[in-house]
């Protein structure tokens, strides 16, 4: 690229070839200042012709035929959601209340230092038992749910690799079917309504785990993992509603439907994930 820049030349090159900037005082001043420079005038004339051609070519590209309708539908949906749904509002209020209660209780807990030490020791012992148990379970044919969740949050934090990048729900379903990947026949309606980014099939300790990348309206990704419940030692019962919690900095939701267990991993808040699985 040419590093020698003349302010007058740059000013004239910034004026649109259609002449819409001709009234701009700085453009006019630059024209007057360079009127005697025949070489520059010729260069600008040729450039204006090329610029006009490139602009025409660019503006000739047609957007997708359904884009206008898609935009208007999305806008109407967004306008309808400006008032948060009552259930989400109630959850946020409850979350605020819970935090406030924790803050109120904190000084009392702090005054019982010996009890905290006892709890600490007990927690360390439980953690050691759990770690040993996790290692033992890994050697079994069925995974503990906690082990699966830990692997999935690791996958999410390291960055996923998609075999198929597609926004088409049907194409993703077809790819997963062809790959023999597990897939739940039913997702919560708000979850199912999200956009798609693509999918992948993982093998976690000999168990197939499919991933569908879902996309929220703010373009944030929700990882939806599905695996057969039969491969899990402690799959959530189908009768239980989705459980939402925070693990390793991610919001995780899990539930079972029919013979599949679904685990959502997202960087969004628990309130948003809860709203998706309600």
């Amino acid at each position, binding site marked *: *690229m*040419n590093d020698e*820049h003349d*302010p007058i*030349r*740059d*000013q004239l*090159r*910034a*004026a*649109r*070839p*259609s002449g*819409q*900037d001709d009234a*701009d005082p700085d453009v006019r001043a630059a024209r007057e200042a360079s009127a005697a420079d025949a070489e520059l005038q010729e260069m600008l004339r040729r*450039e204006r*012709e*090329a*610029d006009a*051609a*490139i*602009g025409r*070519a*660019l*503006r*000739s*590209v047609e*957007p*997708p035929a359904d*884009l*206008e309708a*898609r*935009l*208007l539908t*999305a*806008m*109407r949906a*967004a*306008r309808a959601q*400006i008032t948060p749904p009552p259930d989400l509002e109630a959850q946020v209020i409850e979350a605020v209340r819970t935090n406030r209660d924790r803050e109120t209780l904190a000084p009392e807990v702090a005054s019982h230092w010996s009890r905290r030490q006892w709890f600490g020791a007990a927690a360390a012992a439980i953690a050691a038992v759990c770690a040993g148990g996790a290692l033992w379970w890994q050697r079994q044919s069925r995974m503990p749910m906690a082990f699966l969740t830990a692997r999935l949050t690791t996958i999410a934090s390291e*960055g*996923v*690799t*998609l*075999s198929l*990048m597609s*926004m088409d729900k049907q194409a993703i379903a077809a790819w997963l079917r062809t790959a023999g990947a597990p897939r739940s026949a039913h997702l919560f309606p708000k979850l199912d309504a999200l*956009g798609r*980014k*693509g999918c992948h099939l993982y093998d976690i300790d000999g168990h197939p785990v499919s991933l569908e*990348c879902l*996309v929220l*309206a*703010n*373009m*944030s*990704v929700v990882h939806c993992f599905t695996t057969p419940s039969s491969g899990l030692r402690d799959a959530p019962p189908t009768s239980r509603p989705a459980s939402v919690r925070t693990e390793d900095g991610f919001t995780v939701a899990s539930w079972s439907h029919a013979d599949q267990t679904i685990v959502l991993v997202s960087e969004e808040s628990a309130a948003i994930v809860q709203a998706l699985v309600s």
Partner: protein
Amino acid sequence: MPLVPEPAPDAPAPAAGAALDAWLEGVIREHYRPLYLYALTLCGQEADAADLTQQTAVIFARKWSEVRDLTKIKSWLFSILYREFLNLRRRTARITSLDEHPEHEPEPHPPQQAQTLDGRAAVAALHTLEEPFRAVLSLYYLEDLSYREIADTLELPIGTVMSRLSRAKDALRLILCPAT
């Protein structure tokens, strides 16, 4: 002819309810084409460009009241789209595709004279530029904004916009007409 008349600079904000919805939709109907084309030159992918345009429309539907000067609504929309593009690029940097192997990369577009350029080739040529240059030059070629408005939209000094335009044009000329 625009579907919604351009309001006067000191016009009050539109009334709530159905009239507001109609106004919001009218603004998007009027501007979605250049917004999509700008998104296309930024992303290079039609699906991503449509998503970016949709996200911009949704943000407008939610935050239209933040547009203080209705005469600058076009700049505001382009500005939102550009910010969303930067956010999208940051978010998706952690997602890679198995399809993105070097052997699957499309062939570079053959050199072509500007005068015989078609739309797809123009998008492809612009997409070869580095992002800061592409962001400025694409807005320039869409001819919707003056260089002063481009500076406002991208939050850049006017001198930077003019300098980037010059450099980007030189680079594009080398791509389209390497012999010159």
